[in-house]
């Protein structure tokens, strides 16, 4: 079966969810990943949305924001943002998904502002809940478009913390588990440095390295990312019928 790069990313993200876990879902591709996981290997996962919504069943139709009507209808519970963030802070959230404009060598994310070569600053929307999820979830997974300027050795601004000296005490348990890009899946060494775990079908390790802003370590076991299964694609397409997020 043919599939789009976004569909591959969704399938890869879905596999990060383990059955029974409490997951901070986020929107766009991760939302669809949650739906896929629920419909395949993780039927008991619970989704947390920072607007206060908890769901243990996918919404009946595609969401453009987490506060869309269908995400409320039949929800497990509607709480406040504080109560959802409290789940995070007290360590009840296993996994969170994040997007970002930049991801660096140690899994730090930037979604606040970027500077181009000429020094011109572009203001981005900001953290939202990203910093909180990165700091407090037991692990997080970032998704991004694999371009060299988006993978600098050091982000311009640490909106959401990856690995660093702050990973002690309460924050010791967290950090990035994976970065899923349009070309590859990166994971992290015990020292907190990213390495190439798998490259997507149609790309090569060399292409990934050439498009990464630092000398990326490559796992001796690096392999090709498994393509989405038929079942995963069915779940994706049943949900994002028009391909709004996944075409």
């Amino acid at each position, binding site marked *: 079966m043919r599939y789009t790069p976004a569909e591959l990313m969704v399938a890869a993200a879905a596999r990060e969810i383990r059955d029974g876990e409490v997951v901070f879902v986020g929107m766009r591709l991760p939302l669809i990943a949650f739906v896929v996981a629920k419909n395949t290997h993780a039927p008991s996962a619970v989704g947390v*949305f920072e607007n206060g919504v908890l769901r243990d069943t996918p919404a009946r139709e595609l969401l453009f924001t987490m506060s869309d*009507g269908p995400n409320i209808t039949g929800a497990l519970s509607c709480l406040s*943002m504080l109560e959802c963030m409290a789940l995070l802070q007290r360590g009840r959230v296993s996994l969170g998904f994040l997007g970002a404009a930049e991801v660096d060598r140690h899994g730090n994310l930037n979604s*606040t502002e970027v500077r181009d070569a000429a020094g011109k600053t572009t203001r981005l929307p*900001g*953290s939202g809940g990203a910093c909180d999820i990165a700091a407090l979830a037991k692990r997080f997974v970032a998704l991004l478009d694999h371009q060299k300027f988006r993978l600098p050795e050091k982000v311009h601004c640490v909106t959401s913390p990856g690995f660093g000296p702050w990973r002690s005490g309460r924050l010791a348990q967290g950090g990035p588990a994976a970065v899923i890009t349009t070309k590859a899946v990166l994971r992290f060494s015990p020292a907190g440095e990213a390495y190439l775990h798998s490259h997507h079908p149609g790309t090569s390790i060399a292409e990934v390295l050439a498009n990464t802003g630092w000398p990326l370590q490559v796992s001796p076991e690096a392999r090709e990312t498994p393509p989405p299964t038929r079942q995963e694609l069915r779940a994706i397409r049943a949900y994002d019928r028009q391909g709004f997020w996944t075409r």
Partner: protein
Amino acid sequence: MKEKLCTLREAVARFVPDGASVALGVQLESMIPFAAGHEIIRQGMRSLTLVGPISDILFDQMIGAGCVQRVIAAWVGNVMMGSAYNFRRAVEDGVPHALDVVDHTNFTLALALHAAALGVPFLPTYTAGGSSVAARSPDIAELQAPFTGEKMRAVRAISPDVTIVQAQRADPSGNAHVWGNLGVLPDAVHAAKRVIVVAEEIVAPKVIASDPNRTVIPGFLVSAVAEVPFGAHPSPVQGYYNRDNEYYGEYHRTTRTRPEFEAWLEDWIIGVKDRKGYLGRLGQARVDSLKVRKHAWSVRADFGS
């Protein structure tokens, strides 16, 4: 309790002075009080501080209209489409004028409002460790925790001058039922010096009193309540209407440049008298198409004794 029922125009004129800090969009992407924001723009308020976690495009419109001096928020943009152009123009180029941005995370903003709601000057948290948000913010300080001695962060309380909320239904005293995702609404209401409730419908007090757990806004905290059906469009109101996704796309496509935004502003805000005029421009067919398609009524609860 005194009657506080008035028009949205009166509510804004009385309780949103120039220079005020105003919390809006406290339920994130739903129930954003667009009608109230548009009325603020029409009345030409200036030098406002906007407070809210994720404002979607309302903050962008108010910034573009020149009402705003400072934004205290975790995320400013167009949730479905990405960037919001007025916000970017203000920060990057000072157009229409310079904008002071105090970056928060969703959680630190929720804690700042919660601190004010609890009546304490700060609350402790583990979030934002290692983040530039904490390092740069005047509202986040280091703290050594009593009992455990851990290094944590303290978030400073934020007490908005006025919080404006969209509610599903309210009585004439401002007692309001709100349901669905609450976001930071409870704390934003309790943290504020004044509260304006914009309700989809004004109902009899006995409707509100039939379900006191649904009354997340007690009227004695409310300064004014206005009935404005479809007041949150294009954001959704659970049980009343759905999100107008197309509107967000159109806004994104038609506000890329300053002149385009100015035309948009004239069309949708300055050039209409009030929300009725706005809905007239939107057209009845479009309004009808957004209404709830499938009702899902709550099973009743017995408050009898």
